[in-house]
């Protein structure tokens, strides 16, 4: 069965290693924090200016001066720090952040990503996404494999305005884990109970299948 958003987040959390500084995007990526093993040390960065982001505050303890990039009220963990936006993107541009997890509307087999604009329909802006994808070396995209009409979002070439070129390394969808390689999307894992046929049908881009593909372990 295809994963739900929490399932995607749970699988991505396995990619978060001890000692990592991690930037989580808005949407599914935010949920990843809930599934990270508690026996490892990880610090979450939010690009509006905090390292060491903690969970939501208890009711009545929320602080208007303490939010994440999704404008949600948060807390600061012991050891946290605050900084301005230039320093925040200095951390990102300077490759000090170990892992970036973000959402996408489309990903292409050459590693291009589109997630900020649908011409004529939705123009919300790129926020920090263009800075993140241009500099981060370890980018995981969290997304649904297809859109609401069942059309593939894992493409040969992006159709929407790009956020970044040739930058995505790994994709975790509701159906599969894929790696971007020179020859196409390499199928690494299947969601539990999802068949090869389902994945092939939902993938417009070139799918590279090498031997038996294991199921995700969640």
């Amino acid at each position, binding site marked *: 069965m295809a994963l739900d958003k929490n399932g995607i987040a749970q699988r991505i959390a396995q990619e978060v290693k001890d000692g990592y500084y991690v930037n989580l995007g808005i949407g599914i990526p935010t949920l990843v924090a809930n599934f990270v093993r508690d026996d490892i040390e990880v610090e979450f960065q939010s690009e509006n200016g905090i390292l060491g982001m903690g969970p*939501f505050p208890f009711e009545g303890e929320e602080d208007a001066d303490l*939010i994440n990039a999704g404008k949600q009220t948060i807390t600061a963990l012991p050891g946290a720090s*605050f900084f301005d936006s230039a320093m925040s993107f200095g951390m*990102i541009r300077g490759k000090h952040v170990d892992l970036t997890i973000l959402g996408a509307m489309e990903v292409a087999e050459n590693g291009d990503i589109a997630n900020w604009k649908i011409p004529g329909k939705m123009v919300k802006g790129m926020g*920090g996404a263009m800075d993140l994808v241009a500099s981060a070396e370890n980018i995981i995209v969290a997304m649904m494999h297809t859109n609401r009409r069942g059309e593939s979002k894992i493409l040969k070439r992006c159709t929407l305005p790009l956020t970044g070129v040739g930058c995505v390394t790994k994709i975790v969808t509701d159906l599969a884990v894929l790696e971007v390689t020179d020859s196409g999307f390499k199928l690494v894992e299947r969601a539990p109970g999802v068949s090869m046929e389902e994945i092939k049908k939902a993938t417009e881009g070139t799918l590279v299948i090498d031997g038996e593909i294991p199921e995700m372990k969640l």
Partner: protein
Amino acid sequence: MIKKTVNNVTEALEGVKDGMTMMLGGFGLCGIPENSISELVRLNVKDLTCISNNAGVDDFGLGLLLHKKQIKKMISSYVGENAEFERQMLSGELDVELTPQGTLAAKCQAAQQGFPAIFTPAGYGTEVAEGKEVREFDGKMHVLEHAYKADFAFVKAWKGDEAGNLIFKGTARNFNPLMCGAATVTVVEVEELVKPGELDPNQIHIPGIFVQRIFQGKSYEKRIEQKTVRKK
């Protein structure tokens, strides 16, 4: 000590005129210069170009200026959560320049620190880079982005002293320190204005040299955009 204090928001905004370019600090509604925005609404200055990461919500922050059609052009990285903004943009009433967030920060900081322009990898290969000079450094492509030029910067700090030294709080810091000294006139409003010597010089985030006018703000609403809590 060179004193930077003015008596109130009206004095602080003296010289503001139609057609000016304004920088405004804040991320979402966090750390926005509430008093200066209210005064801009009262002055009813028009045709403004506003450089600010976001455009407020329909009835607060820069949304108040949008509602009165005082803004001609908006330079931001993210403009969701504002229906009036979207309407004005789609109808062509409002000119919008979307800029990657880190680039926006860098262009403010460049203006503050006297760099005419910077190279950044952000936006290379996208429509943001169209018509801009690009250059390869160490095998990676970068886009040339020019420093902003603004008439006024409106900044919100937590504490400040009469010399214009500033301390920010939490994530309300965001773009505020980067806009200090990045415009011809920097106007700072603070929640707490103190006498010189009361702030520890070791703790100051922005020295008063970057500030022209400072005043004690009033009646902060500090609205929360997304209240998210957990159960005890």
